């Protein structure tokens, strides 16, 4: 698969929460080995959109999805989709770091274990590899048995990224991953995302427009559940086509 291929896309995606029409007819392509950011004001449906991509909306009562989400050419909402396998392929990192109240090792090994890996050697290798990819190995190599709750917020978030990497996903969804972190931790996570881009397709929801401009290749602007504009990040930020996009990125509302 080359860089320009579409990895995951939506076609006329609609999401409803009861009577609320949260996502309206969004069609968007997310390209392989690139970072796509979703920006927009609070309540515009960014997180909802993200959660439609790995069917995390399934666990919310009253949520209903219409339209298609196509991963590798197949609609993930068609009957017979293996949700477990889908979520393994499409990993997710949340807004607030949410490590389990377990050791660092057990956090990373959790995913591989539920997918049936039992051999200690194999788990050791996955844990080390994932923590290295998440740029956390050097800080925790000597304290893998320590509770994850004792790590700093930034370390916890990198641990959550390592935990996601451990199940060998192809797409990683980031839901405002830095909004609870200080600037130094944020910079580390951004560096990490840039390096992960070489192997994964990344979609990030962010509140922070500078962050979107810094790290992403493509940017989509959502407003009130509608896709207003989508394009290469540089183009969106330098020459937005829509008035609403320009108003938002220049800080006139938001």
């Amino acid at each position: 698969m080359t860089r320009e291929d579409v990895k995951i896309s939506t076609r006329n995606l609609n999401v409803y929460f009861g009577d609320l029409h949260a996502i309206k007819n969004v069609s968007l392509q997310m390209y392989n080995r690139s970072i796509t950011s979703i920006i927009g004001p609070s309540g515009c449906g960014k997180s909802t959109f993200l959660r439609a991509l790995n069917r995390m909306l399934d666990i919310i009562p009253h949520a209903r999805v219409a339209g298609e989400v196509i991963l590798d050419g197949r609609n993930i909402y068609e009957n017979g989709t293996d949700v477990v396998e889908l979520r393994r392929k499409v990993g997710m990192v949340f807004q607030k770091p949410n490590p389990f109240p377990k050791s660092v090792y057990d956090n990373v090994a959790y995913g591989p274990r539920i997918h049936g890996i039992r051999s200690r050697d194999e788990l050791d290798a996955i844990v080390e590899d994932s923590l290295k990819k998440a740029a956390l190995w050097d800080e925790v190599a000597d304290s893998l048995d320590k509770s994850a709750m004792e790590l700093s917020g930034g370390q916890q978030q990198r641990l959550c990224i390592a935990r996601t990497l451990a199940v060998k996903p192809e797409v990683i969804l980031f839901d405002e991953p830095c909004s609870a972190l200080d600037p130094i931790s944020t910079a580390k996570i951004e560096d990490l995302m840039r390096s992960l881009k070489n192997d994964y397709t990344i979609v990030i929801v962010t509140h922070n427009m500078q962050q979107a401009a810094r790290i992403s290749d493509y940017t989509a602007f959502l407003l009130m559940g509608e896709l207003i504009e989508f394009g290469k990040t540089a183009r969106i930020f330098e020459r937005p086509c829509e008035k609403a996009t320009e108003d938002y990125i220049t800080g006139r509302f938001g």
Partner: protein
Amino acid sequence: MNKRSWEGVKDRFIAFFFAANGILTIIILIGIFIFLAYIGLQAFHEISIREFFFGKEWNPTAYGEPKWGILSLVTGTIYIAVISLLIAIPLGVASAIYIAELASPFIREVLKPAIEMIAAIPSVVLGLIGLLIVAPFVAEIFNLPNGLNALTASILVAIMALPTIISISEDVISAIPESYREASLALGATRWQTIKGVILPAASSGIVAASMLGLGRVVGETMVVLMVAGNSRAFPTSILDPVRPITSTIAIEIKEVVQGDLHFQALFALGFVLFLMTFAINLASDIFLTWRQGVR
């Protein structure tokens, strides 16, 4: 007196009122402890400690040579405690998981108060149900002449411990942050894997504390065991033997003793042992709960 200083007096009075109530609770607890210990320990002027704790025979009214061994009674209490927890913990935790994790909001709203209502059943009523339904049932299954034994008592006492175990376990499980469930599901875990791998471990210390509180209830239960446990002072060797736990022994015999005599003192000593058992169990559950908060 101006308004402000009156408010000040009121404030101090209210603070004093609450402090006094808090202190009163502690005084009552210590008072009971001293009272039991003071009367109970007098028994040891005449009964050897060794006989009391290790003697298997309890027969204070035997002519000429009364026996003061509490081992059979303590064993009866322990049998009922262990068996009823073996029944109540799996049942209680499974119900708590169902209510907290799986039930629809409507079922949850109905089920939780319904389970808490079990606590409102008077134990004497439960004893009647035991006599009429559970005991014949147990007798039938195990082919016994009657069903009044440790197992029957344990089943009924387990029912009494269920509301405590379910209610507290459910609170603990519901208090687990939603983010843990999301993280697990997003890694591709099924709901069952999430419960087993994340929810139960995170709730474990709370579930242990809930079970300890249930245990405290079980050990102190008197009426049901008095009615259905069989009341035999013989040392029980099987869970199908009739037993006479500490509580029913005290309840039966306290009516027959002369206040202040040796038998009277011995029953207080027995009560003191029971109090220490329940106190230790409650203390342990308290330590568990605090420890859990420390971990978070």
